[in-house]
């Protein structure tokens, strides 16, 4: 039983790590500001969920797990909001989608 939970937790952690890695790669490689932000935010959300659930399985039912749930809820609320606010601010300040030069200058 314990080893099954361990294996599941490691799979989740590895998958989360892979998502974060792909997100980082996308943030570096994609052509313009919006696609790069999209890569970072979307995979960050997924990566966060997978990694935190993985750690929760390691922690078991304890105070640590409840704290992790609180962190997860907080991140799931703030991370997409921050991405939205960032994209909105970029749009308002005149960064045009598809224009890689403007996107690079913004970063």
């Amino acid at each position, binding site marked *: 039983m314990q080893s099954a939970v361990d294996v599941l937790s490691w799979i989740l952690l590895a998958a989360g790590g892979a998502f974060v890695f792909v997100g980082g790669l996308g943030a570096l490689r994609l052509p313009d500001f919006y696609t790069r932000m999209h890569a970072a935010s979307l995979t960050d959300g997924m990566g966060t969920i997978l990694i935190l659930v993985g750690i929760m399985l390691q922690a078991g039912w304890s105070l640590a797990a409840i704290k992790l749930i609180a962190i997860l809820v*907080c991140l799931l*609320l*703030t991370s997409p*909001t921050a991405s*939205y*606010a960032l994209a*909105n*601010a970029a749009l*308002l300040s005149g960064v045009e989608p598809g224009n890689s030069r403007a996107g690079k200058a913004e*970063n």
Partner: protein
Amino acid sequence: MVILFAVFLLTLLALTAVAIVRTENLFVAVMLTGIFSLLMAANFFVLDAADVALTEAAVGAGISTVLFLGALALTAEHERSVVSGRWLSMGIVVVTTLILIYATFDKPRLGDPRAPVHQHVAPWYLDQTPELIGIPNVVTAVLGSFRGYDTLGEVFVVVTACIGVLFILGVRRGGYSPSPDGDRLTTAGSGLRHHLIPKVVGRLLIPFIVLFGLYVLFHGEYGPGGGFQAGAIIATGIILYALLDGEAQALKAVPRPVLMGMVVGGATLYGAVGVAGIALGGSFLDYSVLADDPVKGQQLGILIIEVGVGLAVCGSLLSIFHAFAARGRH
């Protein structure tokens, strides 16, 4: 494994520092400074210094970034390039670095129990804290009670810094006067005014941020935390409110006189606990005489001074933020 992680973090830290020096865009430099602080906090945590990590994350990565951005709004976004004197500074930096690296050869190994720092007063603190003060977090005991003078000095440093910033940036007499023009100005000035999603989520989070700040304040005796961190976290919550609803609204919620009262009152509360110690027959900042039981007195004293520290820090940070924001409006 921990060593590997620490080396990774320190490498990132060095890279970030180089990037901060090299970038000419000050906005990027501010963001990198925030990242630097967060990495530093992670480093502190790897070294088991949870209290310092919490302070670094709250003050360095949180508040400082906001204050830097506030200062940046008053100035240009790009650094003026400096041409002369580069080789001189380079030479000084290289020599200093070599001296510092040479000095590390004499440093004891990380975590060495025979290191001088662990031979002096630290064992005494660790031994006596359960007996004299009876709280699990030795850091809080050292900061609040054993070295209460130092913390008192730190609080007055924060208050002095606040007074200095207010003198430089200027305080308007009589606080904020709501006028239709001023309101429109701030409405246009705060970029998030008409953005529903950040506003809703932010408003949802603010009570929890303030609640967490209070938890950190009152839980400082049992876990990492204390007045400094709590003050910074609560100030963050109120600054978030100012960003979402405009600075005028935040000033309506926590007016300038209240902020000044927090700064002065917090520092005075700390000093008053010290004087109360004298009045009750002990010495300055000796909490043992505050209650019948010396241990209870110590705990009461630490709690009161932590509240004082929290008030002073929160008030100072908010005053500085408002000073920057008010300056930016003109």
